[in-house]
């Protein structure tokens, strides 16, 4: 699959939410390369460059991971915990996007080191706007850690006369 620079890894098992998110991100011209996985196990394989994703390199992580919590096979919280406790992957920005309203989930996520936590709005339009603003903030405003794969200096270069 796409071995080059990846903007977003979207971890989502709900088809509707996934479609909406992809639509919002692409519409806003925020991300060119978005890769989708549908369960926690696949997410871990992807991030840890193993199994079906053994060809991937730790030097080219996604700029952002949008992670749902309720996932089949391996739960989102476990994905978060494992990613944030391994030096090879802990600097990857992870934003949880979940429909859960549990205080516990919110608290636990931040404890485990999530970069930020978003509650998915129920409303269709609000959901789309939220995804767009998340994309905008994490891909445009924010500077993702620069890896070996992307050797550019963060920020624009100035051309002199």
């Amino acid at each position, binding site marked *: 699959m796409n071995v080059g620079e990846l903007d977003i890894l979207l971890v989502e098992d709900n088809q509707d939410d996934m479609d909406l998110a992809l639509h919002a991100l692409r519409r806003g011209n925020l991300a060119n390369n978005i890769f989708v996985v549908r369960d926690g196990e696949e997410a871990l394989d992807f991030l840890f460059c193993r199994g079906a994703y053994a060809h991937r390199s730790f030097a080219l992580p996604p700029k952002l991971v949008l992670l749902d919590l309720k996932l089949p096979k391996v739960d989102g919280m476990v994905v978060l915990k494992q990613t944030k406790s391994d030096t090879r992957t802990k*600097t990857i920005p992870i934003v949880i996007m979940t429909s859960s309203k549990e205080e516990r989930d919110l*608290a636990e996520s931040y404890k485990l*080191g999530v970069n*930020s936590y*978003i509650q998915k709005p129920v409303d269709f339009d609000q959901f789309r706007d939220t995804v767009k603003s998340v994309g905008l903030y994490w891909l445009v*405003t924010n500077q993702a850690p620069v890896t070996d794969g992307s050797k550019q200096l*963060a920020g624009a270069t100035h051309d002199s006369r």
Partner: protein
Amino acid sequence: MKQVSIILLVDDNPADVDLARVALQETLHRVQVESVGDGEAALSFLNRTGIHAEKLRPDLVILDLNLPKKDGRTVLAELKANADLHTIPIVVFSTSRSAPDIGRSYELGANCYVSKPGNLKDYLAAVQAIEQFWFGSASLPTKGQLN
């Protein structure tokens, strides 16, 4: 009772602090802005010691890297190692665009890294974007939590 959202600005340049305040005045949410000018004061504020004993816990910290006394990286490391304080989101806000500074900040646990733009318009927009995301889109850890 709805608590006021509190942002702690950690920046030794009063001009930048004032600019940030200008930017934050125009936002939709009610945000109280506190500021300190050096790393030691930042830690004292967050640990609620000394003159900062009565301070409330901030919801968000916007942290410059180059600070007198204790520098931003040290503050970041200490906060993220603190069992009580490490869940407070920290936005590193610095003029540095260097890959090592960015990488190091993430390694130390920064939630995100925003470069301070060079011109006024973009600077204000950046601060507003930070506020808009963290108090508009994101859910912050509630303050009642300990560890």
